[in-house]
């Protein structure tokens, strides 16, 4: 273990806070909103990998790999949804999508 676990958790907390701020601020742009979610998931992965290095168990790395697989599935679906909504409304502004029906 090269650095104390606390420093890794502080770095992950800073990254998570930045991702949260990105998601809350860019509510008008779906792409930036998805980027904020990516940053938060990366912070979660950093905590898992740091814990795995701290206790010498590979389980945390396995969970980081699962987060990665989940993220790739989520991003592919979300971007397909963005393309579909852009085709329908010609916009990526979240405020435009207020109706559930056509």
């Amino acid at each position, binding site marked *: 273990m090269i650095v104390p676990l606390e420093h890794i958790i502080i770095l992950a907390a800073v990254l998570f806070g930045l991702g949260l701020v990105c998601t809350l601020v860019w509510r008008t742009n779906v792409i930036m909103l998805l980027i904020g979610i990516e940053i938060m998931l990366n912070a979660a992965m950093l905590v898992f990998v740091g814990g795995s290095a701290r206790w010498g168990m590979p*389980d945390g790395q396995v969970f980081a790999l699962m987060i990665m697989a989940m993220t790739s599935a989520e991003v592919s679906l979300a*971007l397909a949804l963005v393309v579909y909504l852009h085709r329908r409304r010609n916009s990526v502004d979240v405020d435009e999508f207020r109706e559930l029906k056509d």
Partner: protein
Amino acid sequence: MEAYLFYILAVVTVIGTVMAITEQHPVHAIVYLVTSFFSLAMIFFLLSAPLIAMFEVIIYAGAVMVLFMFVIMMLDLGRPSEASRPFLRRWALPMLLGGIILVSIVTVAVNHISSPDTSRMISINDFSVVLFRKYGVAIEIISMQLLFAVVGALYLGRKRDDR
């Protein structure tokens, strides 16, 4: 030596992320985010997770960010629009909420009394044994999940003639 490298890479990661979320231009934001993910991959390597570091570069910086870039260019969203720019007052409340969460996590982490270090290096061999013996069912579930994601993306992305 490795500890200094960790702190330098941590600063690079945070600066890259800050630049990414404050950038008006979506393509520039993606490029800053790729920088941040590369240094995060290096941090994973320092934390004795070389396989996760490689997957971070291949999947995140390689596939996911290029997918974002592809969608931005396909939908022609690359131009920064002043109309959709967040105002200063819109930054205040999110910064406050994020700051509260950050301060609480940092307080817990600083007051945490760390027990003596019992770690050993994790080789790729250990990782693979745990991945395919202990969590073999989870690998199957991930493969199903990726299949469903492909089917869903194809369904959402098809051309519709009824409009």
